[in-house]
């Protein structure tokens, strides 16, 4: 049974029809066309679908859309400036922290949420923050370096 669903998505109020069993990842990707959020496993094991809900990095594939109703949801699209890139994104590019790039939006979202909460994390804190995100290409080396660089950059979120 579809009922209206409303939330703030990337800073804008959004209303759409949503069945009670709808998963947030499906709503974002299929209904709102926000395809930057990736579907890697549907089981909460890879972190590719990470979004920020009210400041917290959250796995959208394990979140019922209803539970995010009325809240503030930020996806990778919402973290990207209208021109250029944010400091985390720029650091990922500069350090070669993306290879295939499929896990990248999840890592960037997680890193932005971390830096918003803790602007100067230690390396251990960074590793812990991204320990729910899997990357099969980079061995994480350059991802951790990129987040460390972003944390040092003045404009980071």
């Amino acid at each position, binding site marked *: 049974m579809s009922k209206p669903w409303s939330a703030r998505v990337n800073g804008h109020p959004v209303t759409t029809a949503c069945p009670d069993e709808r998963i947030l990842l499906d709503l974002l990707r299929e209904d709102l066309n926000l395809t930057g959020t990736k*579907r890697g496993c549907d089981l909460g094991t890879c972190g590719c679908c990470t979004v920020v809900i009210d400041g917290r990095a959250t796995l959208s594939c394990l979140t019922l859309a209803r539970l995010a109703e009325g809240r503030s949801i930020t996806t990778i699209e919402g973290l990207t400036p209208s021109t250029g890139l944010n400091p985390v994104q720029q650091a990922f590019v500069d350090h070669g922290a993306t*290879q295939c*790039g499929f896990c990248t939006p999840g890592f960037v979202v997680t890193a932005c949420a971390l830096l918003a909460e803790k602007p100067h994390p230690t390396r251990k804190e960074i590793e812990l923050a991204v320990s729910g995100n899997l990357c099969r290409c980079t061995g*994480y080396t350059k991802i951790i370096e990129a987040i460390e660089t972003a944390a040092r950059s003045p404009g980071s979120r």
Partner: protein
Amino acid sequence: MTVSERPTEYRLLGGRIPYIEGPLKVSGRAEYTDDIKRPGMLVGRLLRSPWPHARIRSIDVAKARAMPGVFCVLTGEKYPTPFGVLPITHDETALAVGKTRYIGDIVAAVAATDEPTAERALAAIDVEVDVLPEYNDPKVGLEKVLEPIHARGLNGTNIQKEVVQHFGDVDAAFAQAAVQVRFRGNFAGVTHAFTEPLVTVAEATPDGRLTVWSATQVPHYLHRSLSEVLGLPMHRIRVIKPEVGGGFGGKSDPLPHEIVCAALALETGRPVKVLLDREDVFLTNHGRHPTQNEVRIAAAEDGRLLAYDIEAVIDGGAWSSFGTVTTYYNGVLAMGPYRIPNFRYRGRRVYTNKPPSGAMRAHGGTNIRYSVEVALDLLAEKLGVDPFDLRDRNALPAHSTTVNQFRITSTSFRQCLSAARERSEWNARFRKLPYGEGVGLGCGFYISGSNSPIHFTPKMPQTTVHLKVDMDGGIAVHSMQADIGQGSNTLLAAIVAEVVGVDLSRVHVVRVDSDVSPIDIGSYSSRVTFMMGNAARRAAEELRDQLIAGASQVSGYPVEQLEVGFERIQVRHRPDIAVSYLDALHRAMEKGGALLTSGAYNSPPIGGTFKGARAGTAPAYSFGAYVAHVRVDPETGVLTPIKIWAAFDCGRVLNRLAVEGQIEGSIHMGLGQFLGESMNYRGSRLLNPSLLEYKIPMPEQMPEIECLLVGEDDPEGPFGAKEAGEGPLIATLPALANAVYDAVGVRCSTLPVTPDRLLRLIDERAESGLTWKGG
């Protein structure tokens, strides 16, 4: 054009070149196959066999077909043409025909308006079967069996391929050897675990054409297989490769779901998407073969290697896939980086009722090199020589030929050894660290592109690159090479920009599209940098020459006196006299409009004439020497890798960022196979088909990595480069194993080395009364 002398430094190449798709990937704007939506698109779903081995008596699809919202229900008889990645072993069908051969075989497919409808339709399909005996142990399949999995099994067995090779006289060498060692390795199957699931979108249009978007690392093989199975000529099929979320070999076979998706699109006239869930990705597998091997090595008193005697039994799973190549590689990739005067190998790949094994990063080389390198550690100990000295003494010389007629050109293996030894402070650490801590050496050797392409007509080039420049000055690059994250698009653009002397932003690599991309046979066998790189260079040099001719007409200087500068053509030794890039281009275009150039590469004739002689031949080889530093907790068996010094010879480094990325990623994957990754089976049933239970290493498990890039220019590689995509994985595993030995004195013969296994080995050693470094 005159041949210009080779500069030792390049403007772009050799630096740290960020990936050109980086900005799209970090912003979520890169388009992957699952991001594609077509108007009226249907959902395709697959019914998979719950039986490991069964004869199909009937499939009743009437109820499913009658359901509202169901557009098509497909079974095997409609498209029964067999296919497979190797032309000699076509033993797969898009959907099961007559038999199912593993839990996961596709039995039927549905296209419906949405997922719930498709799921209901699958549930309404009735399949009746006669269950057949299942074969899960490859050793059982070596003998004649009651019900061979494939009719093509050797003499009523399940053996898919047997390779027997003998060079020199191994028995005589062992008879005269001063020292012999033997090592048996037992390797669990591992899988690619790329983050992007397998997915395909297909659309048939009323003009008689079929368009297929797919997560593939070899668009050309998919194109060819679609044509064979669907009965459509290739020119009526258009294959597009969007961004691909990792492959590592797992997207190199043409896969059944890709063909099923296209068939559903043809049957319905509607676009169809088939997206596999993670469990189905695990069942599709094509990962590294579970393997049991045995290596015997004979050596002289002075440490000279005299002979290898190798046997391998390889678990192929349900299909052939690349298996014939795998069977050869498990022997012949032991042929370097040392000189081996006598060599014998017997390898058998056996079908089992398990998910198919196939090609995975460092295909065919990983397990055999593990056993050889651990055996060499045993040998060094027995001889009382340092492991580095033993390897240095036996290093294959540059410009030599192996006993099985591999052509070795460049090798910087000795430089790898000295760099790893020095940087790891080996002499101060080896056998000198306290009990529970150790260092170990492992070495690698891998092909830089298969010399024996899987091709319609081997005389065609392995790769072709086209360039097109119009008056705007942007250079469009067309090639079917498949960037799956390794950075080949970036390298392609950088080579063109380097040769033509323009800013990198002028070059755009056009998405792979079989309508416009000239054939390249894809991302496997570590061939792309070497082969595509050479083709790109040739295409770019032709373009450069046309620009120089244009500049000559503008300036009046003869072409011999002109050279490319940055965004200009200038007079040699007088760079103050120059014609701008655009002025030269516009003059060059006056004759025929947009400039179009083409470059191609085919590998040279190499290798012997005996059966199987071409397996393992390559225009060049990579080499590596890694030292691992580990800590082992003898109370818990927990192994902590602290640091890996990775000395690697990929010839000249063209993109330092990408080479480091390949080495770091390879170490991650090798570490995973060593520490814990394993496809776990109960009988034929895969027990851990998810990323929670099949655990790849996490950030905090990664050691510090120091990349030591010591390669010298290869004579035939583009700008002197060789591969860095797969070879860097190989040395990781034996370096870790030999470091464990140095730490606690036990040999790891069964992979993965989980804490319980390691603890058992440590306890066994203690119980036998042996001590190690005081522990």
